[in-house]
């Protein structure tokens, strides 16, 4: 793979539909487009069921896309091209949410970490052995952990093993699917620091999926907000938190309690009507409209497209689009 293009990942019009019984279709990911620049961390947030995990898995090609295309390092990914896919599987890695179920309980840590290297024929047995030790130290564990089993580790340590496994094959890009949600607060801080440090050291690019918006803000350069299969807003992270353009983003941000009692005492949390509708057979129009306090007539009929409203700041909202300065 030639690391020449500026964008490591370019996703355009990507969709992933699941066919259900009775001819129903679940549009888990629906016409999503974005790109991630090399060395960038893109955060992906949204409520459970919005399709963020499906999007991450479709990019990694654990699910085959229903339609749309993904370019990796400027090259269009062709799932039929076996040789290319094997290379892609190495360069794009994944870290999972649950550090308990994502490690094989009957393999030692050394076996878990070196399995990928064996599959991709990387190094000799001895070299792999040394690499395991090097990786363990890189993620803050040590040589003595190599021959232990996952059950002997705490949640935070297991997540470190998961990270070492992903790093073993020298990836360029990692999909991190809620890698810290299952951990204690102070452990979360350690793991997030580790992610940032590794990005620096190894020039990695992450898609960081999470529902903790404060953590996403802290770690990401760019943030995409997802709602019912679509990206509704995308911008650099400082901008999106300071100036949310989509009412859904505003609602999400307002729901986070801020760890400062003075602010909380006077803060009004926005209450959105009802719950997230089912992603099966979505109504016409903007899918957030039934919960949106600003919704007007057009919202119920027109599906808003993701448009650039301010420089580098995209939102899919009919109301926000009217604020767009005339060109």
């Amino acid at each position: 793979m030639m690391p020449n293009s500026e964008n490591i990942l370019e996703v355009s019009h990507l969709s992933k539909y699941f066919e259900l019984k009775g001819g129903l279709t679940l549009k888990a990911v629906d016409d999503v487009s974005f790109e991630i620049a090399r060395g960038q961390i893109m955060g992906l947030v949204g409520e459970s069921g919005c399709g963020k995990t499906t999007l991450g898995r479709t990019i990694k090609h654990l699910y085959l896309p229903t339609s749309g295309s993904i370019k990796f390092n400027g090259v269009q990914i062709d799932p039929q091209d076996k040789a290319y896919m094997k290379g892609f599987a190495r360069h794009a890695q994944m870290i999972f949410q649950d550090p308990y179920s994502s490690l094989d309980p009957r393999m030692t840590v050394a076996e878990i970490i070196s399995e990928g290297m064996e599959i991709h024929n990387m190094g000799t047995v001895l070299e792999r052995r040394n690499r395991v030790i090097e990786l363990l130290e890189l993620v803050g564990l040590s040589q003595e952990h190599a021959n232990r089993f996952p059950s002997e580790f705490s949640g935070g340590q297991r997540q470190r093993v998961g990270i070492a496994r992903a790093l073993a094959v020298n990836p360029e890009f990692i999909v991190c699917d809620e890698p810290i949600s299952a951990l204690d607060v102070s452990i979360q801080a350690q793991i997030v620091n580790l992610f940032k440090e590794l990005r620096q050291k190894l020039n990695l690019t992450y898609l960081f999926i999470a529902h903790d918006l404060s953590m996403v803000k802290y770690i990401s350069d760019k943030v995409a907000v997802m709602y019912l299969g679509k990206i509704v807003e995308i911008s650099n992270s400082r901008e999106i938190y300071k100036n949310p353009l989509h009412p859904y983003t505003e609602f999400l941000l307002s729901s986070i309690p801020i760890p400062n009692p003075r602010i909380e005492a006077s803060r009004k949390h926005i209450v959105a009507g009802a719950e997230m509708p089912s992603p099966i057979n979505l109504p016409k129009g903007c899918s957030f409209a039934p919960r949106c306090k600003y919704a007007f007539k057009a919202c119920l009929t027109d599906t808003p497209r993701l448009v650039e409203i301010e420089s580098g700041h995209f939102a899919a909202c009919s109301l926000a689009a009217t604020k767009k300065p005339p060109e």
Partner: protein
Amino acid sequence: MSTMTNNILEIKDFTVSFDTYAGEVQAVRSVSFEVARSEIIAIVGESGSGKSVMTQSIVKLLPSPPARIKRGSVIYDGEEISSYNFNQLRSIKGREIAYIFQDPMTSLNPTIKIGNQITEGILAHSKLDRKKASEKAVELLRNVGIPNPQRRMEQYPHEFSGGMRQRVMIAIAIAMDPKLLVADEPTTALDVTTQSQILGILKDINQKLGMAIILITHDMGIVANMAQRVVVMYGGKIVETGGVMEIFENAQHPYTRSLLASVPRLDADSTRPLEYILGSPPDMIEPPAGCPFAPRCRFSMKICVQRMPEMSETGPGHRLYCHLLDERASAHRQRFIEEYSDARLEVLE
């Protein structure tokens, strides 16, 4: 319950252990605190710090063996209940002190209709007949914001979303108008948006019904949003307790400080690494003789590992256990104060 004291609950020297094959796990070690009538008090601490064991042992919810309440007194509404047996506690459990837990899926029985799960408690604790109880259940569901309560009564838990299930749990918990509600991480399994609704309901109940709430959480944002007072637990002990402003702006215990500093905030500087606590929590089979936090504390002294510090009171209601407050430790304390002087929570623009 006759004598009107100011506190709905007073716990003194409360100690709970688990007898296991590996030895005695000393989960809760001599904790004392009180809950005032109609206040919301938050208990914070890492997993394994003893928060849940302590609150569940108040009415002996944990199976014994292995759980064993070793000593201590529990005064509920002026009455000593620590010596109550199972039958005596039945009049308190559910009716006076109610619980809601983290996972609303495992707390509800998947094979019983929601309506029957709510009326079960009402029928057991009151003299209402089935019809009246059912009407009350509908009313409760409406109060916790569940649309179409009549229809919902006939449904099973799997037909409810996580947020809706937690609302059902709240409805069940408040059915008998308890004076104290223990909410054990009630929103950890939920989305932020649902969380904010559930917290709103709890606040509403607290204000309308004057129900005191013990809120167990590890989210400092929730603490700031909900609590009037905070209890910080570590290694089976309470290390600091005080009013919510005191804790957030003037915490004196190094553990509380590092807990606050490890929370990412929307206004945080993302170029600075998040602070975290090195090492891992103590082994509760052989808990340290001194301060449980000493092995991980950046300011620890020789005395810290040897002896548990005495309680100090630094302000009204602000109590903590830390050797740094001893006058002989003033040099160490100075270092502590300096290091955290810039870590105070700045106000959002």
